[in-house]
């Protein structure tokens, strides 16, 4: 197969590759213009922590968008749940191991309430969650009214959004580099390569077409370099943050569930054609409850990460987060019409948007310009999306 044929065969993946290329271009651009400040270990560490809660929301939002809905309530819900966590720790004196499960459970309940309104009462998600947006905004103000900003003093809690994983003690090699992070990066690369080779072997055994060998090796090298590079940069500061660990776990779990399991397939089927799904024995109602329930769970997690990152719960926590999460999902390739959107795409979308903000901040660009640049990127991503999809037909 010639290179041209390869490109042709892969054209339905152009959307994905385009995202990676755009991301790399943004990184390179800001690295050059900030004279390396952008790619510095410290900045990347902060960037990841500041993106984690949006990225977690974006994962949940992707599935909501895939099943043709939207959730506008998650920003203030995250804020309100963060405040509940702060109050539980500070005033109710609940231990951390009770507070976190409680907040996560409340998140699920809130998600199921939304699902009830949407799936059972037939209220359009836009309206139902707009009501939620108002309601949780009120709730947040109510619970923080007497206290104002609640400062959280539980250091374990605060470590979730600010802390880093521990390193080996007393190792003399590579001073100033976080060894555990390096090791984890190495493990990730090995697992990735093993998995790819295994998949390729299986696919060949069943006589299905695979990437030509040179492209395959190129892909392995590229991804390994990216993982290696990120690992090296992060290891240069304080290593992997807990927020990054949580985000990675969420992403791995959700991409596994959405791409490999039966329920993941059913979620996409409902998004693609709800009537067909129903005729094939898939309950659209159950899937709707599941997806909004998971959105609630992830919202609670995002609320915890955010409160922890700020070491406090504020009266306006969560404002606008829902829109950032929605933007991340659309930049990452989700389609308004439903049925389309990947967890990994949305994470990349969140990273792209956060990198833009971060880079422009470092360059000292005016906030008004920043908004407009992000608007252009969002629009460009969707235009690219529509164009590649039309081309693929």
């Amino acid at each position, binding site marked *: 197969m010639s290179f041209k044929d390869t490109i042709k065969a892969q054209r*339905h993946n152009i959307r994905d590759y385009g995202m990676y290329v755009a991301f790399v271009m943004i990184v390179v651009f800001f690295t050059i213009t900030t004279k390396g400040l952008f790619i510095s270990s410290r900045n990347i560490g902060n960037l990841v922590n500041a993106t984690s809660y949006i990225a977690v929301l974006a994962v949940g939002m992707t599935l909501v968008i895939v099943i043709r809905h939207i959730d506008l309530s998650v920003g203030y819900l995250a804020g309100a749940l963060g405040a509940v966590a702060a109050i539980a720790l500070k005033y109710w004196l609940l231990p951390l191991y009770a507070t976190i499960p409680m907040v996560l459970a409340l998140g699920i309940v809130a998600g199921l309430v939304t699902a009830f309104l949407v799936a059972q009462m037939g209220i359009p998600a836009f309206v139902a969650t707009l009501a939620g947006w108002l309601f949780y905004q009120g709730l947040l103000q109510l619970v923080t009214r007497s206290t104002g900003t609640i400062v959280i003093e539980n250091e374990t809690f605060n470590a979730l959004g600010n802390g880093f994983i521990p390193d080996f003690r007393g190792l003399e090699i590579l001073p100033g580099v976080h060894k555990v992070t390096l090791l984890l990066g190495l493990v990730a690369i090995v697992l990735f390569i093993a998995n790819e080779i295994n998949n390729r072997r*299986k*696919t060949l055994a*069943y006589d*299905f*077409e695979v990437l030509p060998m040179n492209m395959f090796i190129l892909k392995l090298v590229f991804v390994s370099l990216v993982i290696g590079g990120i690992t090296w940069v992060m290891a240069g500061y304080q290593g992997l943050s807990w927020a990054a660990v949580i985000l990675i776990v969420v992403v791995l779990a959700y991409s596994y*569930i959405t791409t*490999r*399991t*039966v*329920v993941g*397939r*059913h979620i*996409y*089927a409902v*998004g*693609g*054609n709800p*009537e*067909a*799904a*129903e*005729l*094939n*024995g*898939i309950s659209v109602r159950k899937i709707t409850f599941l997806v909004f329930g998971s959105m609630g769970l992830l919202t609670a997690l995002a609320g915890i990460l955010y409160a922890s990152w700020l070491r406090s719960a504020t009266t306006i926590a969560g404002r606008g987060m829902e829109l950032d999460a929605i933007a991340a999902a659309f930049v990452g390739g989700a389609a308004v019409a439903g*049925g*389309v959107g990947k967890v990994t795409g949305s994470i990349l979308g969140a990273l792209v948007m956060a990198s833009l903000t971060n880079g422009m901040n470092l360059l000292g660009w005016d906030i008004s310009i920043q908004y407009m640049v992000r608007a252009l990127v969002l629009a460009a991503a969707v235009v690219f999306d529509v164009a590649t999809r039309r081309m*693929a*037909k």
Partner: protein
Amino acid sequence: MTETTAVVEMRNIKKHFAAVEALRGVDLELRHNEVLGLVGDNAAGKSTLMKVLSGAYIPDEGEILIEGEKVHMANPLDARRLGIEMVYQDLALANNLDVTGNVFLGREAVSIELGPLGVMDNHRMEQEAQRLLSRLKIAIPSVRLLVERLSGGQRQAVAIARATAFDSKVIIMDEPTAALSVAAISQVLDLVRELKAQGASIIIISHRLEDIYGVSDRLVVLRQGRKVHDCPVVGDLDEFRERVVAYMIGARDDFANAAVG
């Protein structure tokens, strides 16, 4: 079970949508290893009747017996469990999934059994999908293609492959030849014969009377939500066509008295 019990017996099925009386008390019998042709003008109620049988609609009145046993079907899953499959007129495909995903929709093969969290066995499903499709001889380049990229005939083939994937005893095909070329139509009709040879009982809806004539053992004509004709397929094609059209347009009606009573 004996050959004299019908596989499917529908009795006095009634179904209305708002003010529309789609079915006004239809009796229908499908015998073992029989191909039954179901015809009628547009809006006669053919699809509605078959959707009642596939569990997609719940009838207002009437009963359904499968191999002599009265059954209640609340959803398509119930019908599937009883061995009834249907190729829907609008095909019921998810455009965002690939061919394999659609063939196995709702019945994914798993390598690790964990209920909804079961891990899908993609290779097994792909192989099986390929086998089912090659039987249809409608070329689809890859079972990994998204269904939105397929032609009308290819989409039809995917829907048929799904209905024939699980060796069901009753297969309903609602206009399976509607989007097909002449060559592809004869493939589908051959498949109907083959399914029959394998022991399935089949109901086929079509507006192409020559197709019905070619494969059916018996014919039922619906008109305005009622059965007006129920006879074995006999005679030559021209005579058959003339007779069927007479029933379809209301010039003849074998059950006129029953309707009044």
